[in-house]
């Protein structure tokens, strides 16, 4: 595999952007700035390798469709923040961690093993509505944001996940 080099400036720019976005929507980057910058660098390495921000701590297979759930912010972040105070790679932390009430530690993997993944994903098809809705409802798989509109938004206004992370909810 070729060597990916990432400039310090690029790391700094993305670090600042993620930090601002997180603060603006109630999330927090890990306050250990050195650790967090190294993870941001890894996101950029993965962007160069795969074309998207695959989670630095998970083995991406390079196929965007099957890696979609682990593109940062991953589908598992919010559940892990609730349960452990930290996401799997520890880029994001909870209020408790930020306030020093909880330690950052390596946590168990929530992503289902490969064989169970297909059935875990709800896929693009909508559940059958009990009654007709005036508009389709789209759900962000990352943060749960719901939008009733003809098409999902280009970017989630809450967590900044891209359009392809939305699923038809209703």
């Amino acid at each position, binding site marked *: 595999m070729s060597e990916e080099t990432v400039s310090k400036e690029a790391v700094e720019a993305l670090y600042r952007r993620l930090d601002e976005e997180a603060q603006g929507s109630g999330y927090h980057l890990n306050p250990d700035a050195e650790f967090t910058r190294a993870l941001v660098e890894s996101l950029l390495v993965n962007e160069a390798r795969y074309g998207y921000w695959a989670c630095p*701590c998970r*083995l991406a297979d390079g196929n965007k469709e099957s890696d979609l759930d682990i593109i940062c912010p991953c589908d598992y972040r919010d559940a892990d923040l609730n349960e452990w105070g930290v996401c799997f790679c520890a880029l994001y932390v909870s209020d408790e961690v930020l306030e020093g009430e909880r330690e950052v530690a390596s946590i168990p993997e929530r992503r289902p093993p490969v064989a169970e993944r297909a059935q875990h994903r709800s896929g693009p098809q909508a559940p059958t509505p009990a009654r007709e809705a005036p508009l389709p409802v789209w759900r962000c798989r990352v943060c749960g944001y719901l939008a009733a509109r003809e098409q999902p938004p280009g970017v989630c206004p809450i967590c900044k996940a891209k359009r392809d992370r939305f699923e038809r909810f209703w």
Partner: protein
Amino acid sequence: MAEARGSVSGRNTDHQVAFYGLSTCMWCRKTRMALEEADVSFDFAYVDLLQGAEREEAVNAVRRWNPAGSYPTVIVDDEKCVVGYNPDKLRGALGL
């Protein structure tokens, strides 16, 4: 960037230690540092840098012990497995 695979020799050679990690993962980095600090001899593989049959072999070796297939995974003497960055458990598995 890290070498895809190799061996590190340390003074502590009591155990056969296999470290499987990802070159981009901080918990993997910390786990490798813990092994180096314990001065343990170990084989390492960065699975994200492996390709083809080598990668498949490494993925399968990890899954045998850790069905979640997560990283880092350290296998000691083909008997014990430490998943994630867990220095206490790692020292326990190495009898330190």
